């Protein structure tokens, strides 16, 4: 038990970072991490796949996030329906040019953020990521290609943007 807990303790900072990149808010991120650890340490933990504990925990967290996300989407749709507000439309704010890689990253869709974090930052294997996302490895590859392209374009916007050239 305690050896496993030690292993968990080492991974928790990574889980928290993953959760922040998904929720973009540190307190909701910690709630998500807590719910995932509870899940991992409760009966469900018996089903743990062999192999990398980190990949297993990432999978739990990602699924918990998707569940919560679905619920909150329902809530957002309900609000939208009643208030007539549509925040899904691109706003002028959102077309503001990214000023750093991190900002470009933050503007990617959740799925692409999760993927780039797992590939480029965590260095998980394509196979592990395929298991976490529950898709074939080929799908991971094509999504990765799109995500990298999107990040490139958003980051490039900074360099080639006319508004920035005027500032020079």
């Amino acid at each position, binding site marked *: *038990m305690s050896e*496993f*807990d030690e292993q968990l*303790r080492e991974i*928790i*900072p990574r889980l*928290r*970072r993953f959760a*922040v*990149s998904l*929720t*973009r*808010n*540190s307190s*909701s991120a*910690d*709630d*998500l991490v*807590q*719910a995932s*650890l*509870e899940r991992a*340490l*409760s009966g469900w933990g018996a089903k743990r796949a062999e192999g990398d504990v980190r990949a297993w925990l990432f999978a739990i967290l990602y699924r*918990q996030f998707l*569940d*919560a*996300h679905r*619920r*909150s989407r*329902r*809530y*957002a749709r*309900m*609000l939208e329906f*009643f208030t007539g*507000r549509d*925040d*899904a439309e691109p706003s002028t704010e*959102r077309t503001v040019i990214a000023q*750093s*890689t*991190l900002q470009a*990253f*933050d*503007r990617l869709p959740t799925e692409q953020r999760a993927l*780039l*974090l797992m*590939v*480029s*930052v965590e*260095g998980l*294997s*394509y196979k592990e990521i395929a298991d976490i996302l529950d898709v074939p490895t080929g799908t991971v*590859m094509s999504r990765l*290609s799109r995500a*990298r392209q999107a*990040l*490139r374009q958003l*980051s490039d916007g900074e360099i080639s943007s006319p508004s920035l050239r005027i500032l020079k």
Partner: protein
Amino acid sequence: MISMPPSERDLHAYVDHQLNEADRRLVDTWLTTHPEAAAQVRAWQHDAQLLRAALGGALQQPANPELDPALIRQRLKRQSRRHLASAAVLLIAVGIGGFSGWQAREMTLVRSSMLPMTDALQAYRLIAQQGILPADYKVDTDGDMQRWLDRYFTQASRLPDLKSAGFEPVSGRLLSTDEGPAAMVMYEDRSGHKVSFYVRPPGPKNTFLPRGSRSDGDLQADYWSGDGYNYAMVSPTDSPAAKQLKQSMQF
């Protein structure tokens, strides 16, 4: 062994160190004679480096003791002793808007249980006691609260009039629960005591409740059903305000 020329996928795998040694050397050599592809690969590598650097700081944040595995184990044990049903989680969700559209700003996962209207008590704790969730709506002038509620729950019972106990509706908050969308209206009296009116659908199992009340910790919930919804009034147990409220509501 990959085939030459490398596909785009091979190049991604090269960037991510997922090629075997022999393949990696093949791509290395190939890139020396293909400057365009080499530039593309360098750009991806550069983005990955920047991302690692940008997100590196996130690993340095101070530990959150709530997330310690030993503590979570203890909590899980306590919970199973209390026979709380752990399957259903209630999500109290989110505001919308902002730079990247709506986001999970206030995502809070709390466990619900088999006891009636637990979500109403949880909502009271989150909103009235801990102040975790901001109000969606605050009353400006008299009568607005009913109009706000009517936008979401058209056929629901009227908001109870608690003026005789000194309580006025002050704010409202929409919530998302396992049973469907819920609304909580907060009442306050002059000295800042808070009681809440909570309404939501009976849920997929159509659980209608006989009129009843129960206490949970420092809170008391009075609940009932009517007009297709379930309701609860939540107030702190034993406060003089709650007693006065009870009399004026004629439960």
